């Protein structure tokens, strides 16, 4: 019954229509009988065979007794519409793989810090733990640090959704470009110092004023800096250069990390791309830092350029027009 062409058989279409996005085999058997398509004693085996050949129908929780399974609603919506081409089947497979990877990544990024929070909170609440004042402080600091991390992940997810929906209005004003770099460096310094990584600032000769959303541009620069620190070797140097040319200002972040493979460079600004773990840095982040930074740059009429090669480190340059992009921004006019 399986269809190598990616075309689902009538029984699967019927099953998906009857089942929605989940249910037990027993419920389904009853519904199939009621609809005139049953009984089918080998229904689960039939569905499994077809699911594996189609690839995109996810079957979960099938125990040795074969009593439960779930078909994804993504596949269900599509399949109930009828015929499908190879390209469409490929697209569905890609979407399903992305969805699975995304949920695993977000689960890891939220549940891991939550584990540290719960462990520390349990110790603070325990009547028999008796932490010393120093241990008490460590527990509270760990909770605070991990709560911040979770807040950042949630913020990144919300930000990227808002940028894509075009629902973020930039609050533009005039500010000095090197000041922004200095503050971004300051926010990363505690993390860098833990690994003896130097954060150097190379300012321009003259002060450079920019018209834009200072908070958002700092957020973008912090995302670039955060990646640079993460992939730098212990004791390495990360340099931030501020330059002005042809009506644009650029903040360039250069690291001494392992460099990014050419294949990965094409994917860097895709949402939820976390990069290969063999780049040498710890896995961290949901893969939204660079897409968010790019969305902020684009909203200012700017861009992000990447120069990287294996063994030579990476340079990410965030550049925007110094006078802003009137069409893209909402002025508050206070500082202009």
């Amino acid at each position, binding site marked *: 019954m399986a269809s190598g062409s990616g075309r689902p058989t009538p029984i699967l279409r019927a099953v998906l229509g009857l089942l929605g996005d989940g249910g037990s085999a027993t419920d389904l058997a009853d519904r199939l009988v009621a609809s005139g398509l049953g009984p089918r004693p080998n229904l689960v085996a039939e569905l499994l065979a077809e699911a594996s050949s189609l690839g995109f129908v996810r079957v979960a929780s099938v125990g040795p007794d074969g009593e439960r399974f779930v078909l994804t609603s993504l596949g269900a919506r599509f399949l109930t519409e009828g015929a499908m081409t190879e390209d469409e089947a490929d697209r569905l497979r890609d979407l399903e793989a992305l969805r699975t990877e995304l949920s695993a990544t977000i689960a*890891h990024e*939220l549940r891991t810090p939550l584990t540290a929070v719960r*462990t520390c*909170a*349990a110790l603070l609440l325990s009547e028999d733990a008796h932490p010393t004042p120093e241990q008490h402080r*460590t527990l509270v600091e760990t909770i605070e640090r991990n709560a911040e991390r979770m807040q950042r992940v949630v913020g990144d997810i919300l930000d990227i959704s808002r940028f894509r929906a075009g629902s973020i209005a930039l609050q533009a004003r005039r500010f000095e470009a090197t000041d922004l770099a200095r503050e971004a460096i300051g926010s990363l310094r505690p993390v860098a110092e833990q690994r003896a990584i130097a954060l150097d600032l190379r300012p321009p000769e003259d002060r450079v004023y920019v018209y834009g959303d200072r908070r958002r541009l700092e957020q973008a620069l912090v995302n670039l800096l955060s990646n640079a620190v993460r992939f730098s070797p212990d004791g390495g140097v990360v340099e931030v250069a501020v330059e002005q040319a042809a009506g644009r200002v650029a903040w360039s972040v250069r690291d001494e990390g392992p460099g990014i493979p050419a294949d990965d460079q094409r994917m860097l600004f895709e949402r939820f791309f976390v990069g290969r773990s063999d780049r040498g840095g710890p*896995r961290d982040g949901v893969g939204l830092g660079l897409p968010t930074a790019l969305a902020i740059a684009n909203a200012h009429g700017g861009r992000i350029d990447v120069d990287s090669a294996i063994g030579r480190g990476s340079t990410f340059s965030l550049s925007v027009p110094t006078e802003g992009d009137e069409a893209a921004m909402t002025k508050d006019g206070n500082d202009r």
Partner: protein
Amino acid sequence: MRILVVDDEPDVIESLRLGFTLQWREIDVLGASTGEAALDVVEQEHPDVVLLDIGLPDIDGFEVLRRIRAFSDVPVLMLTARDDAMDKVKGLELGADDYVTKPFNHLELMARLRAVLRRMAMPPPVSRAPSFRAHDLEVDFAAQTARLHGERLELTPTEYKLLYHLVRNSGHVLSHATLLAKVWGREYVDEVDYLRVYVRRLRDKLGDDPDQPRYIKTERGLGYRFIGVAP
């Protein structure tokens, strides 16, 4: 006693280290943030227990477990941010002793750890009857061994315990909860996946077909029954 905590998040390792320092002082915590580092520590330091995260930056925890099992029987608890049942089954099939889903708190983890250690220390069950025979299977209770067609079966302690309780109640249905409590402990009566994985492993070693069983019959929704009849 020394525990190796393998997690790519330093705060997880450090908070567990502090937790053991405060509440289980006999435990020393070793840490590893990558799979390769974990394999080195297991090989060189011989920890008594390993807490192993699945999401590691270099090689995933399942692969680390597979490699550990190639040279060590050290008890391994998988730590994971995923709560997918298939992940759980995969870990157990590769030889994990337990599975804890993040976020857990320290007290939950200590309870699971104590259960695993208790199970490791528990002597195998003994019987007054010297042995049991059904078809080509012979279980020698005194020697705590089993033979099929006269060949000794390589059973893990957990597999032996499961077989023991099934054959000692030959002909009777043992519920999932009963078997889980007898073999794993009372905390595990809802962990039916554990039982399924081990029944499958036992069937494989016995050459038993679940559709036409000679030894272990699935009683759907209830449990399992040993159906080989002792002569």
